[in-house]
């Protein structure tokens, strides 16, 4: 049980670092780290297939998308960076305090609630049940996924399409 608390704590710390760090690249890496920690939690809870998706797509592909976006945009000058850092410190120092207060309030509020209504089950890996759910019971979702991917690909093509004069 202690391990779960430690992993959950690490996840919040990594998300805090993601939000508060100055560099955008570090921020993107912090997001990837949060994804990796989330994957560990998903494995612990028995969502193994979803965990594999999370690790490969969210920690991998999305980080690549973020790093590419950051590399396509201009870096700040040193003077602008210093001004921005001072400004950032003013805006972000509330966040750790806010999370601490929110955590304490939630722990206090949730402690007398009867969560016994829900029945936790031990983590079990049932690939057949997932196959049945994904390919048979929720078949319409797959159609939606294909449509969304098509819309996304079309959107990206339109955004990066070169105009006739060579101008983008």
């Amino acid at each position, binding site marked *: *049980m202690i391990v*779960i*608390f430690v992993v*959950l704590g690490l*996840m*919040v710390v990594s*998300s805090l670092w*993601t*939000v508060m760090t100055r560099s*955008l690249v570090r*921020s993107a890496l912090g*997001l990837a780290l949060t*994804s990796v920690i*989330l994957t560990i939690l*998903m494995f612990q*809870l028995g*969502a193994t*297939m*979803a965990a594999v*998706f*999370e690790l490969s*797509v*969210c920690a991998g592909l*999305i980080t690549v*998308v*973020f790093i590419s*976006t*950051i590399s*396509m*945009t201009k870096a700040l000058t040193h003077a602008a960076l210093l001004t921005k850092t001072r400004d950032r410190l003013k805006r972000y120092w509330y*966040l750790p305090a806010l*999370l601490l207060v*929110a*955590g304490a309030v*939630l*722990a206090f509020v*949730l*402690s007398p609630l009867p*969560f016994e209504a*829900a*029945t*936790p*089950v031990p*983590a*079990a890996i*049932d690939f057949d*049940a997932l196959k*049945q*759910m994904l390919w048979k*019971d*929720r078949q319409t*979702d797959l159609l939606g*996924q294909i449509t*969304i*991917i098509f819309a*996304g690909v079309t*959107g*990206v093509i339109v*955004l990066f399409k070169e105009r006739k004069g060579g101008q*983008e």
Partner: protein
Amino acid sequence: MTAAFVVFKAYWIFIVLLALAGVYCVVATRNLVRVLIGMELMTKAATLLIVVAGWASGRMALAQALIINLIVVEVVVIAVAAGIVVSLFRKNGSLSTRELDKLKN
């Protein structure tokens, strides 16, 4: 109270904290890339919420199917949003949300 319930409540608290960090990131920043990163953090909280709900109700297969859907939608949204951010940067020369006033009036 059994250990499982303590863990269950701990998940709820940390999910709220994660979502809060994402909301704060979106609200406090003026950088478009950071807005996307904040959105991603909120999505992580939603993902964990679905996993915990599946674990608590014993319907992990359904939870995993929903998470796979969520991840696909998440990737598409981020890819298109990143494209829009790059286009805006090329147009305005800045990633600041304060520059997004071209449609004003």
